[in-house]
């Protein structure tokens, strides 16, 4: 990893903060479900374009957007399928919009090619996936967390994406804004990985004043068209952008391309391009990883979880502590890039990791990879359809502590 990849982000907004456009911000204290809170997050983040296709249990996000946007000033378009929705948002982005789409299970599968296109063309955009049970049509109305590997690896080829995992309606709001901000900072597609439970649970959601919501503007170039090169990386490996209609006469292609954006299909360009697409996200695997932790100082056993499972795991952690077991909490919020630096550090001083998730073992492979042996890694799998029984997680913690 190049030295500059871990440096503080060359994000202009860090020096010149920008705030939300008040038109989209529903300031106040609300009682919202996760899907609706996510929608409010998109509006606060500045999204004025959404394209979607109906699918349970995610449709409420765009239903609310369709209801809200005509008075805010923007467009929701219901496309003919998820393939169309996932590329229409990218057209809108190159037209100058902040844009997103929303889906679940089968729809997420259909969007995979365009996640790769967004990664390759460095198009900042947001994909919300409210996870349901799979494979195939599976359990349309019931929860799972079984798309985690798909979010990272689902499109062909090597590339990098960011994935965030909220565990409450409040976080659906907050992390959706963060997803848009990270998309702009790194010029990548960002996945907001809800699950059916988080999407449909209703809780208090506090929406601040617009001037308290930080929004990252697109990194538009100041260079004149004659000098500007659309894929020439800055110091943080992220290139600056332009939008259509400004005289830059730029070219965007999903083919392997050079710094000008022209197809250049040779081994050295491929190597340079693909490595950069992955390496530019390195800070998120390290010092900028987003995690929620507790009791790690003295922990023997660390429970690694995310999304709805983290709330079930909390009960097991509390019960273990009551029994005198030194259990700690490591809640993954930024799941991709995997926050490996933190796990590597923990692995050197804890006995075991317990990893409950609503799948047959996905993020647990990442924990195993990062732990590299010194600490045991114990999966607590679940095929989905409901959440874990906390006692199963507790049992795993008790066994791990021995």
């Amino acid at each position, binding site marked *: 990893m190049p030295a500059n990849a871990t440096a503080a982000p060359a994000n202009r907004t860090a020096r010149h903060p*920008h705030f939300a456009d008040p038109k989209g911000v529903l300031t106040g204290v609300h009682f919202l479900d996760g899907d609706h809170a996510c929608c409010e997050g998109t509006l606060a983040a500045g999204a004025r374009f959404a394209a979607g296709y109906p699918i349970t249990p995610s449709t409420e996000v765009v239903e609310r957007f369709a209801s809200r946007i005509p008075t805010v000033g923007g467009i929701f378009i219901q496309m*003919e399928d998820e393939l169309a929705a996932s590329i229409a948002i990218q*057209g809108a*982005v190159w037209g*100058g919009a902040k844009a997103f789409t929303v889906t679940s299970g089968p729809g997420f599968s259909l969007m995979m090619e365009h996640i790769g296109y967004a990664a390759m063309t460095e198009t900042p955009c947001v994909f919300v996936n409210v996870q349901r049970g799979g494979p195939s049509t599976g359990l349309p109305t019931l929860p799972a967390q079984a798309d985690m590997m798909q979010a990272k690896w689902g499109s062909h080829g090597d590339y990098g994406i960011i994935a965030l995992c909220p565990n409450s309606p409040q976080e659906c709001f907050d992390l959706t804004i963060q997803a848009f901000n990270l998309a702009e900072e790194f010029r990548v597609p960002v996945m907001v990985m809800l699950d059916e439970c988080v999407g449909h649970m209703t809780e208090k959601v506090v929406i601040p004043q617009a001037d308290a919501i930080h929004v990252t503007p697109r990194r*538009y170039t100041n260079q004149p068209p004659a000098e500007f090169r659309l894929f020439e990386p800055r110091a943080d490996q992220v290139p600056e952008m332009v*939008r*259509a209609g400004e*005289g830059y006469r730029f070219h965007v292609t999903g083919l392997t391309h050079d710094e000008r954006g022209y197809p250049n299909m040779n081994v050295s360009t491929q190597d340079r391009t693909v490595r950069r697409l992955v390496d530019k996200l390195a800070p998120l695997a390290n010092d900028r990883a987003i995690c929620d932790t507790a009791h790690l100082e003295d922990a023997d056993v660390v429970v690694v979880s995310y999304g709805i499972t983290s709330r079930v795991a909390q009960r097991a952690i509390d019960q273990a502590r009551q029994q005198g077991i030194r259990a700690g909490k490591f809640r993954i919020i930024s799941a991709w890039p995997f926050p490996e630096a933190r796990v590597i550090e923990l692995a050197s001083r804890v006995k075991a990791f317990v990893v409950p998730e609503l799948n047959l073992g996905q993020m647990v492979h990442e924990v195993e990879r990062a732990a590299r042996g010194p600490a045991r890694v114990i999966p607590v799998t679940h095929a989905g359809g409901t959440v874990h029984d906390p006692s199963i997680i507790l049992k795993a913690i008790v066994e791990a502590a021995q």
Partner: protein
Amino acid sequence: MNHVTLETPVEIPADAHNPVEPFLRMDRMPHIWCPGCGIGTTVNCFTRALLDSKANLDKVAVVSGIGCTGRVAGYARLDSFHTTHGRAIPFATGLKLANPELQVVVYSGDGDLFAIGGNHFIHAARRNMDLKVICVNNLTYAMTGGQTAPTTPGKVISATNPYGVFEPAFNLVQLAEAAGASYVARWTTYHVKQLARSMEEVLKKKGFCFIEVISPCPTLYQRRNKMGDGLDAMKYYKQASKLRNGAPTGECGLTASGEIAVGKFVDRDRPDYFELLRGQMTETLGDHFAEPEVMCKVCCDAD
């Protein structure tokens, strides 16, 4: 970002070898198209149409899918997007909705627009999205080696129908009309003047416009069917084309060697997507309706 607007019409540099040079990325020449291929001819007509229509080239974007014609975006010196296979139209839809000032031209092939992308075509036509769709129809999948397309006429030999195509082909102009297109025309690459004029016409027309251009593929379609070279295709187009302006599109289907009905079949005024949206929202929301400003304000202000 610098807001640069070139004066139009474009000045032809004195040292240009060809008047279309200002419209092309000359640093990308030579192009990949085969001798006798018609795609370059259509690009020539397109540049002529841009010139004659006095379009502000900074506000014209070209969106292509994948395939031989998909490469047009890479050669046009405009804001240009080479998207994924079949998805040029939905990408163009997002681009147009984000910035309605843009003249968005979708330039792609028959396989891209009507097989893998067929669903998007009919829905964009149904919405009367303000897109200008130019389909270079070479009757085959050329980039991948001459496989059967939904436009390949019956009986001909293709890489995937080595014993002859037996599936019926789409009649693209009929499909476009039925789906709701505001403008439907067909020409061949022999009809360069008419094609350029048609392209100029759609650049000035609102709504979903469709031009089909029958174009030779000597390398993968004609050779396999002993139909000669590019010049033979021109002779066939000249001899077999019949001008049928306003003809019922249902009577304009193509065969391997029969008549080619050319002309403008449909030119009608329907409210486009934006008019429909505004109309409905104003009717239900009245003064509460806010004109769509899709471009990110924060990004523009920070610019």
